[in-house]
């Protein structure tokens, strides 16, 4: 019997070691393909020797060309050209990034949050001003992306990608042409409507319908928008983020809002799915590169930002990521179909109707959270109910204790 457990123990240890060992040869193979510059660069150009500095880059997942699917490994290329190593890690939402930064939990050199988060970080003095003499490639960034609302004067950030939010709908089930956000409130599509699972994007849709600014600080505006969302709730199939792809593709849902770049792939690969930017206007978002004030390798971080602005590199990245680039010069290096597509690059007329998010003041943010919770909860509850629950459980506990004590007394007597 002992032996059984000993063998089981061995099994676990072997398993673990097997995994570890298995991933090492795989990594060695990779290391061979994308060689790390320690004097052994590619044969066409010599690599810059290692400077002994590692920068920590924090970006969205699947947001840089990483050497798969025939794309160049951008980080390796940077290391090869400059000798600076890159420790590349990823995050899933702006708020997660913020939670980690504000707690001091990590030491990043380059971060790539979205517009409103950049705005928030600037307000809270968590970003360092950029030294543009280290970022000469900034000249490639198009005029319309300079001096944005979320970073007046463009002192703290450099745009990386951009896009708009639009409406996707399945023409197999929806006969008419959709032109307005109100289609998401249409009874005929009840149970087949998807909505964003984050407050700002969802509220923005309601706000565009009501004609408000998405950055309003008027409490009544937000309350009105929340009422509209609550009205919509029974018609909504689910509040999703990336699940929209699978649901739209399998025709589980017929109509959903999402970011243009991602879903362009859906439109290309499906005859029935169409994309439209509604007439009321929409959110236009930018993901921008910036440097936290706590960074200890600012010059190297700026070199990285500069590198990503190089048109060839930007083009390679956008080819892989599938979003729109803020640099016209990069389009020369990109897939022609992508560059011509109105989904990726809507005309100016549409762009006139867009608005970008900026940071909201503290009270408004709290209100937004509270209202969003109410929308998802289905209405606020009563404190007394909670107190009743706690007292109820306590009561049961005490009752059992007393019962047991009585029982013990009776048994001893």
């Amino acid at each position: 019997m002992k032996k059984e457990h000993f063998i089981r123990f061995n099994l676990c240890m072997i398993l673990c070691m097997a995994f570890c060992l298995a991933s090492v040869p795989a990594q060695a193979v990779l290391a061979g393909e994308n060689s790390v510059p320690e004097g052994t660069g590619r044969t066409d150009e010599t690599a810059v020797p290692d400077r002994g500095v590692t920068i920590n880059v924090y970006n969205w997942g699947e947001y840089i060309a990483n050497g798969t699917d025939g794309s160049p490994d951008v980080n390796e290329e940077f290391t090869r050209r400059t000798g600076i190593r890159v420790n590349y890690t990823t995050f899933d939402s702006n708020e997660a990034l913020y939670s980690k930064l504000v707690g001091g939990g990590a030491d990043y050199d380059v971060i790539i949050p979205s517009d409103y988060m950049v705005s928030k970080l600037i307000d809270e003095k968590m970003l360092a001003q950029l030294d543009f003499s280290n970022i000469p490639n900034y000249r490639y960034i198009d005029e319309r992306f300079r001096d944005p609302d979320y970073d007046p004067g463009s002192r703290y950030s450099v745009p990386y990608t951009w896009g708009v939010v639009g409406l996707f709908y399945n023409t197999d089930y929806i006969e008419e042409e959709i032109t307005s956000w109100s289609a998401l409130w249409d009874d005929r599509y009840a149970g087949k409507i998807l909505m964003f699972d984050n407050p700002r994007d969802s509220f923005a849709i309601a706000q565009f319908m009501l004609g408000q600014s998405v950055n309003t600080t008027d409490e009544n505006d937000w309350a009105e928008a929340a009422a509209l969302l609550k009205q919509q709730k029974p018609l909504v199939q689910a509040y999703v983020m990336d699940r929209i792809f699978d649901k739209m593709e399998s025709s589980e849902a017929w109509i959903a809002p999402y970011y243009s770049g991602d879903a362009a792939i859906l439109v290309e690969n499906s005859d029935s799915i169409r994309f439209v930017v509604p007439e009321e206007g929409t959110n236009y978002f930018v993901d921008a590169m910036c440097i936290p004030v706590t960074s200890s390798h600012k010059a190297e971080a700026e070199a990285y930002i500069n590198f990503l602005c190089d048109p060839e590199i930007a083009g390679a990245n956008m080819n892989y990521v599938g979003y729109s680039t803020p640099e016209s010069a990069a389009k020369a290096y990109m897939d022609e179909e992508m560059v011509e597509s109105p989904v990726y690059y809507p005309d100016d007329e549409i762009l006139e109707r867009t608005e970008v998010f900026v940071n909201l003041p503290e009270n408004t943010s709290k209100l937004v959270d509270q209202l969003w919770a109410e929308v998802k909860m289905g209405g606020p509850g009563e404190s007394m109910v909670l107190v009743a629950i706690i007292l109820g459980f306590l009561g049961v506990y005490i009752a059992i204790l007393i019962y047991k004590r009585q029982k013990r007394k009776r048994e001893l007597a």
Partner: protein
Amino acid sequence: MKKAGARIYTFLIFLFLYAPILVLIVFSFNDSETASRTVWGGFSLRWYRKLFEDRLILEALCNTLLIAVVSAAASTVLGTMAAIGINSMKRLPRRIMMNITNFPMVNPEIVTGVSLMLLFVSAVRLFGGRSLGMGSLFAAHITFCLPYVILSVLPKLRQMDPNLYEAAQDLGCPPGKAFFKVVLPEIMPGIVTGLIMAFTLSIDDFVISYFTSGTTQTLPIYIYSMTRKRISPEINALSTVMFAVVMILLIIINARNAKERKTEKLPEYHESM
């Protein structure tokens, strides 16, 4: 009749447990431009190819496995020692220890994650030293694995006859040897189960790892960070590979056992006093 019923029931439950795993495996071979997880486009190994080209994911996997192995091992050792100690305590200190031990289990993970992060950050500020990283990850993982290990070993200790240890010493065994030869084999099932549970918890932990990892990337963090765009089926491919490795090992071990054991053994039971 009863045996057939038991077999059917077991089969059904395992079907329930493994149905999503099968779906996962099947869709790792999906040939689809849009990386669909619901619409089958044909058979293809492209995601496996992509998996082995992706340097970052394999680094994350290595980190995760390393952390899982080390924290499972460390928490097992620490937890076993703790269980032995707690077992010898009087009623009140034991109650206090057990209640505090339950805290990491009772708290939602995000609260544990953020509070540990803040703790580590203050420690780093106080004592100097580098920012969070592998070290803080180990500490965090060991912390949430410990309750499971302790709660696995403790009942086995209680079940064990306390006189066995003394009997061994009476027969001339030095205390250390008596421990390893008498006590340890008795509680080994609890230790192994605790180890397995700790490893399982650690390998799939996201929330706590996210906050305490500093600039280190682990596999769950990598996977969750894909949720803004799309979780690519190369993750399915990775899971399939892991699953296959474990299954093969299980089959090998089982086959080895089949050769060694020819007679059936009854499940163990104790002579309780």
